[in-house]
């Protein structure tokens, strides 16, 4: 009797719980497609899940871009973002067998997904779509060379992101990814001295810092500022400076650097380029040129300093965007390329075969045909214009000669999140951007209607508008239209073909060795930069090498050298093919 009462109480409790839950969700129901009364004529509304590793937003695509996609395909994109939700989002969904309807994943993930049957083979579908068809050769090439073990027949599973349509051996941007950049007014302020080498750079930086110890608003100026946020296998800041003298760190390696001639150099080489760059920072620190907060500050602090022109030496091509504006350029204020005479920059070419990630369709996708239609539009001239430049007649207009030009609204539509007119979808321009956040066809590709690149920075109209007193003075001094032009003319830069493929997978043993050695290399690098004297600098280096050997460093070097040699071969092939 009493037991029945207990059971009754439990049932009551459980029922009430379920009632509450059902009021809120329909008691355990998953998302179901409901037929909308107001659907477009041809297609039923469809919501697809898009797992994009480039996205930094998770939620339904809204705003003007969402509006376009809905109007054209009656499609709603539910964006899932590992950047927001963590890598576990990818791991758990992969483990459960359904990544999403459309995915953007990187090469190593693609390998695993093909092997576990998570992505669809779309080889036979591409020919049905006029825009995608144009790039089928690049698609086939990429997939065929991707990983013969996992994809022996070279079926097309992945469509590489950011493909350019130029060639594998050209480089179309106006400035190398990493090269010396200085604030022009401070450089001219100390007499625009000719800089012959890295020591010369130190002298110039010192005179700049001595003459201008603070910015006009009283903040401390430092010649060199470093940060730890992006340290990967090595100290990131030192790694990118190595590019200036011809050495880069290829993807999927962590222990060596490679130059254009095919020379493989372990990072631990005593007269190697990595040590040289650490020494450069060490010398700079001894001269008081390095920001003492470097080791404890993060990127946010650094970007504030860059915006306020508190930093002397920059090297990433996009860092100029923090301070430079057209207004400032008129007053000859801005950060620009300043060549060092003995530079030998290595630069990867245009990503003709993509840049390391791919679009793929999930094996369990709800409507692959509709997704392909969407992707086809994604690479069509009309779609590309939306993705790279915005809305015609709002962000840009077409001139009499057919070329495009930014409107006044267009100049600041993104940064100021200006309101988009209701007929185009309404909402803020920045808010309504494509949340998938990556392109299939890259913006260094030609728009057939204009003959110029899709990327607005390379439109003639933009280049003309950006000509200021600053750029004119620069062009006069260096007799070149931009940094890339200068370095090419003076044979100070080597373009290596961009190879997009997987060079192999790491065994768990190698993975562990990499992660252990990476920490040691990064931490020691920082300590070396801030060492009190050369004795300490050298000792840290030798101790690091000994410790690395104890962790199986030699195995990493052997494996990475193999991979570099394979890369060199592929590059030679690509160069031969391009001719």
């Amino acid at each position, binding site marked *: 009797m009493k037991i029945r009462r207990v059971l009754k*109480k439990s049932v009551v409790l459980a029922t009430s*719980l379920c009632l*509450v*839950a059902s009021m*809120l*969700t329909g008691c*355990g*129901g*998953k*998302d179901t497609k409901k037929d909308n009364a107001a659907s477009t004529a041809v297609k039923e509304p469809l919501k697809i*899940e898009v797992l994009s590793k*480039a996205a*930094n*937003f*998770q*939620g*339904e695509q*809204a705003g003007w871009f969402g509006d376009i996609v809905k109007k054209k395909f009656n499609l709603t994109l*539910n964006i*899932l973002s590992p*950047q*927001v*939700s*963590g890598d*576990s*989002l990818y*791991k*758990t969904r992969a*483990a*459960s067998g359904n990544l999403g309807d459309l995915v953007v994943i990187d090469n190593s993930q693609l390998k695993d997904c093909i092997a576990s049957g998570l992505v669809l083979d779309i080889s036979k579908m591409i020919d049905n779509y006029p825009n995608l068809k144009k790039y089928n050769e690049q698609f086939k090439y990429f997939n065929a060379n991707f990983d013969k073990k996992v994809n022996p027949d070279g079926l097309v599973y992945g469509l590489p992101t*950011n493909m350019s349509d130029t060639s594998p051996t050209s480089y179309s*941007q106006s400035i190398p*990814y990493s090269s010396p950049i200085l604030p022009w007014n401070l450089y001219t302020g100390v007499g625009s001295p000719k800089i012959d080498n890295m020591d010369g750079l130190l002298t110039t930086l010192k005179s700049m810092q001595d003459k201008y110890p603070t910015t006009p608003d009283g*903040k401390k100026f430092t010649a060199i500022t470093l940060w730890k*946020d*992006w340290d990967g296998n090595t100290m*990131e800041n030192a790694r990118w400076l190595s590019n200036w003298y011809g050495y880069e760190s290829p993807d999927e390696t962590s222990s060596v650097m490679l130059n254009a001639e095919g020379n493989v150099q372990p990072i631990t080489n005593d007269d190697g380029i990595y040590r040289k760059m650490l020494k450069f920072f060490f010398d700079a620190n001894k001269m008081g040129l390095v920001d003492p907060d470097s080791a404890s500050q993060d*990127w*946010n602090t650094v*970007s*504030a300093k*860059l*915006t306020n022109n508190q930093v002397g030496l920059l090297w*990433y*091509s*996009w860092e100029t*965007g*923090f301070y430079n504006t057209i207004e400032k350029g008129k007053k000859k204020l801005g950060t620009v390329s300043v060549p060092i005479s003995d530079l030998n920059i290595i630069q*990867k070419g245009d990503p003709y075969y993509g*840049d390391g990630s791919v679009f793929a369709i999930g094996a369990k996708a709800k409507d692959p045909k509709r997704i392909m239609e969407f992707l086809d539009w994604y690479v069509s001239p009309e779609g590309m214009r939306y993705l*790279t*430049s915005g809305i015609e007649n709002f962000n840009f207009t077409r001139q009499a000669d057919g070329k495009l030009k930014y409107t006044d609204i267009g100049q600041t539509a*993104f*940064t100021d999140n200006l309101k988009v007119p209701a007929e185009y979808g309404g909402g803020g321009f920045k808010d309504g951007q494509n949340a998938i*956040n990556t392109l299939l066809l*890259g*913006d*260094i590709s030609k728009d057939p209607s204009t003959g110029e690149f899709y*990327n607005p*920075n390379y439109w003639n109209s933009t280049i003309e508008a950006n000509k200021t007193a600053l750029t004119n003075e620069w062009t006069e001094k260096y007799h070149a239209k931009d940094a890339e032009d200068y370095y090419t003319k003076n044979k100070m830069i080597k373009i290596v073909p961009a190879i997009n493929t997987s060079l192999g997978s790491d065994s768990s043993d190698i993975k562990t060795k990499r992660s252990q050695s990476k920490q040691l290399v990064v931490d020691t690098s920082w300590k070396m930069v801030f060492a009190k004297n050369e004795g300490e600098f050298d000792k840290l280096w030798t101790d690091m090498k000994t410790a690395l050997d104890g962790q199986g460093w030699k195995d990493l070097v052997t494996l990475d050298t193999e991979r570099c040699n394979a890369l060199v071969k592929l590059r030679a092939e690509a160069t031969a093919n391009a001719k």
Partner: protein
Amino acid sequence: MSMHVVSSKKKKKMKSDINDKLISVLNYIIFGVFTLICIYPFYYILINTISANDLSAHGDIIFMPKGIHFQNYLDVVKIPGLWDAAKISIGRTVIGTFLTVGASAFLGFMFAQQDMWLRKFWYRYTIITMYFSAGIIPWYLTMRNMNLTNNFLAYILPTVVSPFFIILVKTFIESVPRELQEAAEIDGAGIITFFIKVLLPIIKPILATVAIFAAVSQWNSFQDTLLLVTDSKLYSLQFILFQYVNQASSLSSMINLQNSGSTALQTITKMQTPTSIRMTVTIVVVAPIMLIYPFFQRFFVDGIMIGAVKG
């Protein structure tokens, strides 16, 4: 009583009076200092969220706000989906807290029953779950198999049985004299009746404690959303705000791509500083908690008041 004894007693009392006063003064001062170091950082955060963003980024705002504006808060309020997410968060906080407090109280009570079948075993069974976790993948697969993905219940069911709260309640109940329950049983009251009518009012302080802990935990949690929920209608407030903060800072870190050239990168550099966003979000999340906190506080700060009930 002889004069001698009286005066020494008086002396003792005077000494202890001075002692007491000294302790009081020290007490006020020490707490005052600690309170200051707790409130200043919060004050700092608050004035930075209403001051001009660039001044804030430079670290210029230390004691007084400058260039007062409320744009940071307006931006937060304008986040799409914020209000729906707020409703979800309020829903889960209210329902989740109610269920957790109820379950903790009930289980704490039951585990204090000496004569429950295999009490020790089941108590240990419950407690040790605090010390292991199976890992994110089996957790996700289990939830999925039970249809708890994209389901509001996923926010509530897993936290109903919380070992820590059960321990708190049980320890508190053990200070209640056992005669109370025996007396009730003699009077013919069932165990449930005793629990609801007699015990619950007595253990209000610990219930309030559990309630505030559970409520804050529900309000602040979003790890569960990260994996289990992909339907944007179920996103909690913390998730939306976390994403808002993350967007600003990850755009900055997205720059670390070799093949830049896309327009977004150049323009990223002019965005809001993530720290000011983080600060604004902190205030937005904490403000509601501070508003309802006094409601719970009155159950346990007023000091010894419940003595009479025990008599």
